């Protein structure tokens, strides 16, 4: 809904952009748009819905080698047993919202003795963000989230939210720096059949190949989604060669014992394997 703000091209914008709670004559909330811009400078996050889980990959921006990490991650956070999120934007702002989400999930479970449906959790966080665009003269949160969750109503779900308090569900999406490049790559590659597969079972697909709009999207599994996520991240990270230390790969699947969900941040070794697979695929595609 919000187009990117041209840098103060209208002098009128100046009068209406200081206060979050005031519409501009064009009907825009400039502060909210500026907040969204802030996120376009933040470390990229990719989210991909798979058939057996969800993958979220984030660009880790290490500002100094002297930094001593206190938490497991500054990008991926567990919200409750069946939901997690990745962050793009101001970490300090994100901490407030993550705590809000955790409290909401806990209170819901306390009240209903049930897991909170993922969309309700997302909507709660978003309503909290929205309040900062309408009341109080406070600035909006400079954070966008990718929420990954599982519930018994809709299975695995992926949501994206931004400072305006708007949210939407996705099969695959990107937030943060170079997200447009990431999204265009996802559009072509998500759901595409892998080139090495034999078309044993797809005479119908052969027919509909001419009409991409009607072709059913084939949902990847987590392993494939991980590779796709790494491909997207390498594209958004200024085209540099992907290295495991710069990216954080997270998967959410159903726990093996059937009790709840498994949240897993890949070890450096596991990440390296995914990166190697992607590089091998790219190399062989280059040869072909």
């Amino acid at each position, binding site marked *: 809904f919000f187009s990117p703000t041209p840098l103060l091209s209208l002098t009128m914008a100046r009068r209406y952009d200081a206060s979050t709670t005031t519409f501009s004559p064009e009907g825009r909330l400039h502060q909210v748009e500026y907040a969204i811009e802030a996120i376009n400078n933040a470390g990229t996050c990719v989210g991909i819905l798979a058939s057996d889980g969800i993958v979220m990959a984030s660009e880790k921006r290490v500002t100094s080698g002297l930094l001593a990490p206190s*938490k*497991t991650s500054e990008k991926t956070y*567990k*919200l*409750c047993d069946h939901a997690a999120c990745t962050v793009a934007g101001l970490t300090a702002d994100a901490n407030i919202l993550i*705590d809000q989400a*955790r*409290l909401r999930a*806990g*209170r819901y*479970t*306390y009240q209903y*003795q049930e897991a909170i449906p993922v969309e309700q959790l997302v909507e709660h966080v978003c309503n909290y963000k929205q309040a900062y665009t309408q009341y109080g003269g406070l600035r909006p949160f400079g954070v966008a989230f990718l929420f990954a969750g599982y519930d018994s109503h809709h299975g695995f779900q992926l949501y994206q939210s931004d400072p305006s308090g708007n949210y939407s569900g996705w099969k695959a999406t990107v937030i943060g720096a170079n997200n447009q490049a990431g999204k265009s790559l996802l559009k072509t590659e998500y759901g595409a059949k892998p080139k090495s597969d034999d078309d044993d079972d797809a005479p119908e697909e052969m027919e509909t190949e001419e009409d991409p709009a009607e072709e059913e999207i084939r949902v990847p599994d987590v392993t494939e989604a991980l590779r796709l996520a790494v491909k997207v991240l390498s594209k958004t990270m200024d085209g540099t060669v992907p290295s495991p230390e710069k990216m954080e790969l997270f998967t959410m699947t159903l726990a093996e014992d059937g009790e709840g969900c498994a949240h897993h941040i890949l070890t450096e070794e596991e990440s390296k394997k995914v990166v190697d697979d992607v590089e091998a695929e790219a190399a062989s595609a280059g040869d072909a």
Partner: protein
Amino acid sequence: MSILEYNGAAIIAMAGKDCVAIAADTRLGVQAQTVACDFRKVFKMNDRLFVGLGGLATDVQTVDQLLKFRQNLYELREERQMSPKVFSNVLSNLLYEKRFGPYFIEPVVAGLDENNKPFLSGMDLIGAPVYTDDFVVTGTATGNMYGMCETLYKPDMEPEELFETLSQALLASVDRDALSGWGAVVHVITKDGVTSRELKGRQD
């Protein structure tokens, strides 16, 4: 009639050598009338931490839910498990918050700390804690349970002997108490895991 004696309970937690055990009866009554014989009063908080809640049944269930809520938030924020000592303090704090309108429960906490050493604590309904290294009891048959424990207990029992001792202490105590009994559950916690068993005693 005391509100703490409305539903009935008998809970004991005992320490052994690098292990703890906690046992509770399973009766739920409404004064003299027995309503259920499968009512849970001991709750697993994690693989090394159990809490036994004796007292008014509605508060038993509510406090269990509240504790899970607080523990869950702690684990999400601190990215580590709550130790038994900390948990005991959380419970004590939770109870004192309601100092002038308390939850009618008197809990016992049993767990293994970071070094796999046993941890036991008990407290009253407004959170006054007591820490022991042998046993803690709570419920409507405390007089009986204290007597049985003092007599049967010895330090550094292995898990199998601890189970036997605890079970005998509990079964003998509830027989002379009208409000507790009707079956029991015993959990033995060691560093390798938890073994849970159900006891069938006198069904009266």
